[in-house]
């Protein structure tokens, strides 16, 4: 088993940004069902949604700026760590994610093992 990260971007119907509560409820339910399923199959490691705000700390000078100021569509809106056999399986698993219903985007990234 290898570890992968799902990096979510956008998704205009994201749980906490939802415009009306009925669709927000539906949306939360969808995430709960999906993540519950992953958990039961032993796939899910952890994950959190992120607020569309924060700070950036940059370079050798550790320069602090407000940000990230990118378009909502580009904004990282959350992450998940999962277990999968390989990247193909990780991609297949990701297709059940509710982010696509919200017209969002998902990036699958294998965890880098640090070699001695």
């Amino acid at each position, binding site marked *: 088993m290898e570890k992968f990260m799902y990096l979510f971007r956008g998704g205009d119907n994201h749980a906490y940004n939802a415009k009306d509560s009925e669709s927000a409820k539906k949306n939360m339910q969808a995430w709960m069902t999906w993540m*519950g399923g992953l958990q039961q199959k032993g796939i899910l490691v952890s994950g959190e949604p992120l607020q569309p705000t924060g700070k950036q700390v940059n370079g050798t000078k550790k320069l602090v700026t407000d940000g990230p100021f990118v378009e909502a569509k580009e904004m990282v809106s959350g992450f998940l760590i999962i277990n999968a056999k390989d990247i193909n399986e990780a991609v297949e698993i990701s297709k059940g994610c509710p982010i696509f219903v919200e017209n969002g985007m998902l990036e699958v990234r294998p965890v880098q093992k640090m070699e001695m």
Partner: protein
Amino acid sequence: MEDSGNSELYKTVDHLFRQESGKMVSVLIRLFGFPNIEQAEDIVQDTLLKALEVWKWGKIPDNPQAWLYSAAKNKAIDVLRRQKLKHKIDSDISYLLKSEYTLVPALNEMFTENEMKDSQLRMMFACCHPSFTQEAQVTLILKTLCGLGSKEIAAAFLSNEETIQKRFYRIKEKIKEENISLDYPGADAMIQRSDAVLKTLYLLFNEGYSSSQPEKLIREDLCEEAMRLCILLTENPKTNLPQTNALLALMCYQVSRFNTRLDDKGLIVLLKDQDRRQWNLSAIAKGNEYLDKSAFGEAFHDFHAEAVIASQHANAETYEKTDWKLILDMYNALLSRHNNPMVAVNRAVVLGEVEGYDKAIAELEKLSGLSENFYYNASLAEMYMRAGKHGKARMIYGKALSLTASIAEIELIRRKINACTT
């Protein structure tokens, strides 16, 4: 002025709080896991205090239940986010509590009507885990599902607070040692555990129905709670068994007589002397309904026999018109399964109505080991009395008198002795 307003408020919320706290505690224990029982109770306590605090200044919200649930939910979320729990969470939904993606939706879900009912069912099964003694099972149900405090439980058991607190301490140790959870038992253990749950509800009900409990309010509350939980069992296909309906029928018949069992001075009125017009007809109708529903499947449970007996009493026009023969059959069925001396005493009394009081006396005198039992002596004396042997009756009533401390029972026997003519 303000004081009277507040006491009015306390009265209004008292019943609501008791009912709702049992539900909320079950949900929170399901969320946090059984070992975190104290945190669950603390949250509910805080919620109720906050409600009193807020409601004191305005009026009670239109939907007080929803208000309480939402407050409890927020406190629970706070505790979960700060990971302030004493013991690691180990529950069937713990994985949903780890991520913000699922935490709030999971809690919303848990506080829906269906899930709250499910949590209470799970709680009932957990409380009746075979590792707990019978006494511990009843105590635990009272504390968690019925929302009673140690003081009230002590009153219900005619015990003191310290004893009850010690009992809780042992219960909590047991939960940790045996790793008892709110998961449903496996299919093979399910029927057995359901029977344990029913037996415990039966005891809970009897605790309330028994005339040894001096406080009327406690009695009514215990009976009401036992019935509420039993109804909950009938609402779920897993636990809606023939015996569940039989037990509920039995309870309905018993409560139909609740107000005629004691006269206005608090003295016991025996079945024979009760005013049948005062029996609660809608409770009897409910009993008949559940008794009908209990008649499916092969099994004939003890509760079936007891419910049929109670139904004959409840539906009989007069004491004399009671179908004593059918009741005797039921007692024979009960006695063939358990060699229970109290059942044998009851059976003998019924035999008296079917075959004559001399026969009953002969049966009673055959029973051994009961000579120091109040109920046995009172029944035997009653049979002598009905057989017209007042002298003998008076003597045995005298013996019964020395065997009880209950004021109501002493008074009953005194009246009986006075009624003996010779």
